[in-house]
């Protein structure tokens, strides 16, 4: 065969690859690949049979092209053909192609599976290995389905070669990981356990991996593996390093197997059988002893392998947590590593120590290393190692050393990496709280914390300070004093201002005796920070001010002055504005008794899990924080005061907003302290003159979509949404009008607290007087509520009043604002006049202030009748046969107001030159407004602006309008 003479070199492939490597640009590479693909396609065309060698070569080239990132859509068949070859190299390439390029193509999968099945049942171990590797590499569900039953059989069959067993174990492990449901458990499981006794260490290593995975799922079934593993481990540990030959790695006997066995043992509790237990302890001791021996080699591989086994042994010791001597020895061993040259070792030592610290036996031993750890924190160059040091400090902390550790952490915080600052802040806060001996120290610590790393102090931390200060009366005075002093720094962090504001607001009276911190000084100090703060902090400070009014009546005047200032009362922020308005009102109206009730000191907070701890856990992810509580359940440190409870860790994390009476989160809460009597009173205060009470209060979007329709008509639906429908019926006579408003509840549930009001903007108040009859506060589902409005037009106006309604539906407060269609033309009285009269007056209206005219395009096709109806609806009299041009419309009317009467003339001129029949007929409209000459026209500028609006509403056409004032 010629292929044999060529050998396995595959020169063509080598040439192709070097061609690709030599390509100067991507384009050149693509060209070369296209050429090669065309060549392979012509070879694979199928009319002439290819020998195995060429097939292998071309499949190899395809594989290479695929690995370069190009799509391959042919050649699969050839690759499958290679599988049935008897030559190892060809079969290998075939399997390689299949493992890399397999897709769930049904007809090919069948062929592939067939080939694999043939190889599995062949007696040739290399072929079996290839097949097993392919199954493991692909690892798809299809593969698992087809072979999950066969592989265990191969694994436990007595006559299988060792290397095949090894592959089979690993293949089964892989299938078990990808599709565990498809791997059947059966009688083979017990026999797998006995593989731990196999002669061949490779088989044992592979089997241990498999057993560990299986044991994690159902520990019961593999319980017998413990004794076998211990036996195997002791044989390895005690063996001289030369015994195992191939499996000795740089003088360490079978390190991988040892590590795996130790891992397997970590799936189970300490063995109950004393003999086994003794043997295991012996092993672990031997491992610890070996660590003390001088290294047998200077190579890094030797120490790595040794340490790997050692660390795994220490994790097993920690896992068992039953032998104090071993724990202490482990701790000492780790202590040595803390000063080791290798960064990795130091890291691992710190990490293992963290877990050791939570064991009651070794906690004290860990504590002896505190100096080293602190030193590591300061000098370590690698941030991840420093992070571990922080973790360890956190874990080893208890009452005896808390002051030192917290001080060190605070020290470190100033220079710490930004990435871990927040975490350190949380840890300091937790430790300070948990092990606080006296709370003055705690308050000092936290204030210090805010000073050093204010930006990283989250809400939870300062919430917690306040909770604790409020719950403990012995510390309140001290806290107020310290906060006051801290606030005196020229630049202090906003969080400090928040804490200061809250604490002084509650307990400022405790330090008011000292003239250096008299009420006025306190207030001025806080207010000096006011303008530098963000909105939520300002809101908090406003609450502090009202509390000051209660605490110190003598500063009431000053504070009211501040609240009354424009920057508060007219603040652009709704929250601040509302607080300022309400607090000012409250301080003016309520008596001192009421104030005292409303602004009582906060009641103690209920005990709950520290929100900081919850936050730290969230930040690190579950299982990352060494739980101090869990480790030492019996050591409840600060007596009954602390919220440490055994189930603290299982509690769901509360949302941070529940922590502190939702400061700054909802405007309603802030103005209504939890006292029912005061609440009722507050409502009185604010309802007294409620309609004009808040002239500047924004009402949300005002709906006016239906507004224009009402210019020419008086009845109809003004507003409608999913909940409510507002209908109107109105009648006007001279300068008076009456409007019936119907509120229809479209839902099936009751509206509660229903109230409606009409709001007239600024000048409109004097121009229009509206009386509203109060309506029922509830509207039943599906019912309608009627309300009557009496309207009087005092003088001419432009704006329309706004109807604002409010009700509670299903717990949420609904606000609706609608423009009421009360326009000046409603007060028109039509007047008839002759053609001569009309034009005489028309000509008199010559000054520019007296007329408005507008030209607009017709939006709709023009209909004489519709236009007439609209003009009549507009309020004027339609004068027939007055204009010489019959197509023009002419109207006249008098607008009645309480003060004056204004005559108006109107002329609408449809353009006679309009292109007949076209959709865009042009309409000209003239509207003249006649006003008694005797009356001066102070609002002349207003009236035309009304009329410029009007035509577009009336006729829905853009237009040309002349309005002239007499």
């Amino acid at each position, binding site marked *: 065969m010629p292929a044999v003479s060529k050998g396995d070199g595959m020169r063509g492939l080598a040439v192709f690859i070097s061609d690709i490597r030599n390509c100067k640009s991507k384009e050149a590479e693509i060209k070369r690949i296209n050429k090669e*693909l*065309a060549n392979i*396609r012509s070879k694979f*065309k199928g009319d002439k049979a290819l020998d195995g060698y060429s097939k292998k070569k071309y499949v190899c080239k395809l594989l290479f092209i695929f690995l370069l990132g190009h799509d391959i859509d*042919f050649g699969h068949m050839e690759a499958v053909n290679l599988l049935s070859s008897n030559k190892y190299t060809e079969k290998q390439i075939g399997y390689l192609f299949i493992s890399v390029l397999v*897709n769930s193509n049904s007809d090919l999968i069948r062929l592939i599976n067939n080939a694999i099945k043939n190889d599995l049942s062949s007696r040739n171990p290399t072929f079996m290995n290839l097949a097993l590797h392919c199954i493991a590499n692909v690892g798809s569900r299809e593969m698992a389905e087809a072979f999950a039953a066969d592989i265990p059989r191969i694994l436990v069959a007595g006559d299988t070669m060792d290397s095949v067993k090894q592959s089979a174990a690993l293949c089964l492990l892989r299938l078990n990981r990808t599709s565990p449901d498809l791997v059947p458990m059966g009688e083979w499981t017990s026999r797998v356990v006995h593989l731990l006794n196999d002669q061949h260490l490779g088989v044992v290593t592979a089997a241990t991996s498999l057993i560990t995975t299986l044991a994690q799922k159902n520990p019961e079934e593999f319980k017998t593996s413990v004794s076998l593993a211990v036996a195997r481990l002791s044989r390895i540990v005690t063996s001289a390093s030369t015994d195992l030959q191939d499996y000795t790695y740089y003088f360490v006997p079978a390190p991988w197997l040892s590590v795996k066995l130790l891992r397997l043992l970590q799936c189970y509790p300490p063995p109950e059988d004393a003999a086994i237990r003794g043997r295991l302890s012996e092993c672990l001791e031997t491992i610890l002893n070996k660590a003390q021996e001088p290294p047998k080699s200077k190579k890094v591989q030797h120490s790595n392998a040794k340490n790997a086994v050692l660390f795994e042994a220490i994790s097993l010791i920690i896992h068992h947590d039953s032998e104090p001597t071993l724990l202490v020895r482990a701790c000492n061993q780790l202590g040595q590593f803390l000063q080791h040259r290798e960064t990795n070792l130091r890291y691992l030592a710190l990490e293992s120590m963290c877990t050791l610290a939570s064991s009651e036996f070794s906690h004290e031993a860990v504590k002896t290393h505190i100096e080293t750890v602190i030193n590591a924190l300061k000098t370590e160059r690698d941030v991840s190692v420093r992070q571990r040091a922080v973790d360890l400090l956190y874990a080893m902390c208890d009452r005896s050393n808390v002051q030192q550790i917290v001080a060190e952490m605070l020290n470190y915080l100033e220079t710490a990496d930004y990435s871990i600052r927040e975490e350190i802040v949380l840890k300091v806060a937790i430790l300070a709280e948990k092990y606080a001996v006296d709370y003055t120290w705690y308050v000092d610590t936290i204030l210090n914390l805010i000073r050093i790393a204010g930006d990283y102090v989250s809400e939870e931390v300062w919430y917690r300070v306040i909770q604790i200060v409020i719950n403990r009366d012995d510390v309140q005075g001290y806290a107020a004093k310290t906060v006051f002093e801290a606030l005196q720094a020229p630049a202090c962090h906003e969080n400090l201002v928040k804490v200061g504001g809250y604490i002084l607001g509650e307990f400022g009276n405790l330090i008011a005796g000292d003239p250096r911190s008299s009420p006025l000084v306190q207030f001025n100090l806080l207010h000096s920070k006011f303008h530098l703060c963000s909105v939520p902090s300002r809101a908090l400070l406003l609450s502090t001010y009202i509390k000051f009014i209660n605490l110190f009546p003598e500063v009431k005047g000053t504070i009211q002055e501040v609240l009354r200032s424009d920057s508060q009362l007219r603040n652009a922020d709704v929250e601040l504005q509302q607080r300022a308005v309400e607090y000012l009102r409250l301080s003016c109206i309520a008596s001192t008794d009421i104030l005292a009730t409303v602004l009582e000191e906060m009641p103690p907070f209920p005990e709950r899990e520290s929100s900081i701890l919850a936050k730290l856990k969230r930040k690190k992810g579950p299982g990352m924080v060494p739980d101090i509580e869990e480790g030492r359940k019996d050591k409840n440190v600060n007596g009954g005061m602390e919220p440490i409870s055994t189930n603290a860790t299982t509690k769901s994390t509360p949302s941070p907003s529940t922590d502190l009476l939702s400061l700054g989160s909802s405007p309603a809460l802030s103005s209504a302290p939890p006292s029912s009597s005061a609440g009722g009173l507050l409502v009185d205060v604010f309802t007294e003159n409620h309609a004009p009470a808040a002239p500047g209060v924004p009402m949300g979007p005002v709906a006016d979509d239906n507004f224009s329709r009402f210019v020419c008509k008086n009845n109809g639906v003004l507003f409608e949404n999913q909940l409510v429908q507002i209908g109107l019926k109105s009648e006007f006579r001279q300068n008076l009008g009456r409007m019936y408003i119907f509120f229809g509840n479209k839902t099936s549930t009751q509206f509660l607290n229903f109230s409606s009001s009409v709001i007239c903007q600024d000048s409109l108040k004097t121009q229009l007087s509206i009386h509203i009859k109060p309506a029922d506060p509830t509207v039943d589902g599906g019912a309608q509520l009627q309300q009557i409005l009496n309207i009087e037009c005092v003088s001419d106006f432009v704006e329309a009043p706004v109807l604002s309604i409010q009700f509670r539906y299903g717990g949420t407060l609904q606000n609706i604002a609608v423009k009421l269609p009360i326009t000046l033309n409603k007060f028109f009285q039509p007047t008839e006049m002759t053609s001569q009269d009309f034009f005489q007056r028309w000509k008199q209206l010559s000054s520019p202030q007296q007329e408005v005219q507008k030209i607009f395009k017709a939006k709709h096709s023009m209909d004489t009748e519709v236009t007439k109806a609209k003009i009549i609806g507009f309020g004027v009299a339609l004068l027939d046969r007055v204009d010489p041009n019959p197509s023009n419309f002419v109207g006249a009317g008098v607008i009645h107001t309480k003060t004056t009467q204004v005559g108006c003339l109107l002329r609408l001129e449809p353009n006679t030159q309009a292109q007949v029949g076209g959709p865009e007929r042009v309409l000209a409209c003239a509207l003249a407004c006649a006003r008694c000459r005797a009356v001066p026209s102070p609002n002349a500028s207003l009236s035309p602006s009304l009329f410029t609006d009007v035509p577009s509403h009336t006729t829905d056409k853009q237009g040309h309008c002349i309005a002239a004032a007499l």
Partner: protein
Amino acid sequence: MIGGLFIYNHKGEVLISRVYRDDIGRNAVDAFRVNVIHARQQVRSPVTNIARTSFFHVKRSNIWLAAVTKQNVNAAMVFEFLYKMCDVMTAYFGKISEENIKNNFVLIYELLDEILDFGYPQNSETGALKTFITQQGIKSQPQTKEEQSQITSQVTGQIGWRREGIKYRRNELFLDVLESVNLLMSPQGQVLSAHVSGRVVMKSYLSGMPECKFGMNDKIVIDKQGKGGATDDSGKSELGGSSGKQSIAIDDCTFHQCVRLSKFDSERSISFIPPDGEYELMRYRTTKDIILPFRVIPLVREVGRTKLEVKVVIKSNFKPSLLAQKIEVRIPTPLNTSGVQVICMKGKAKYKASENAIVWKIKRMAGMKESQISAEIELLPTNDKKKWARPPISMNFEVPFAPSGLKVRYLKVFEPKLNYSDHDVIKWVRYIGRSGIYETRC
């Protein structure tokens, strides 16, 4: 403004790096390489934003030119500058290649210092630059004072592109109208989109400070004159296949800086004092009434899953007296082609596997002729059922007329100070129409 300019080779190695502003850090060079040159997906946009830094790049063969800025610059200005930079480099040392750039890097830095100042583009006129940035290294004796002052006055003066006192024994003028015609046509012969982008390139060897006036059959000018009275050039100069067309509508055009734009705006006449040597007088684009020199009629038939029959006819559509050259028709083949047989009446055709296309070349072809090719393509059955996208058939050619219909009406030269007149100048006019993207769907 431009913060820096980098030139890379195809591997992304930096050949030239010039930073003009402090806001561009050293890592900008790497950012562009990592995110554009070595990007996993090919970056097609010429503008890339990386970390608030904008990179504008153009590619010349294997060389990347990238301008960097942190500011909100006029992108068109930056690209204009980059193209100008390419032109300048080509004028100095020929083809832009890695080799040439490495050999001339001192020169390039010198040029970059001159044509960009603190990121603001300066005089980039090759002729002017060549007077004071030379390739021959430092001259043995320094330039005389007069020479230096002359350069200064030219560069800073009103006419920065021409120096005074040029003298030629023979006053000669070469004018090339170079057009590229772009087309996308449906299989049925319907024009989907077509436009011509053209350039008027001049080479002038004129003495003194001549004033030139260039006239062409611009529709607006012709109509204006037509209204005013009879035109003197009707029926003159019949080039190309268009017979009745006398004027063309130009969609937009740009001029060399020497053209007086105010005069163009008011009278639409193109008058200028030309630079010495070669330059591009104007660029323009037309979309109406384009003469399409060739028509491609494709016929593709699929015979089963494994065979494809293709027949393509090309027809030349211009005066029989003219000859088109360098005709190349590129017929794309499916990606699973395993064999091709081609028969063509004229020229040579070959299946090029590396480009996935049949390339049919014809050296010369007269107007009003037609020729055809037929090919049988064998296909290899593939696994995926994706249908072949049928890319369009593209064409390349060169014809001796302007497909837009543009004609030069006159080019007058006035030199009041020296004693030569318009008649003494020897003028040469040439039209070349090339294919741009000339495609027919099949």
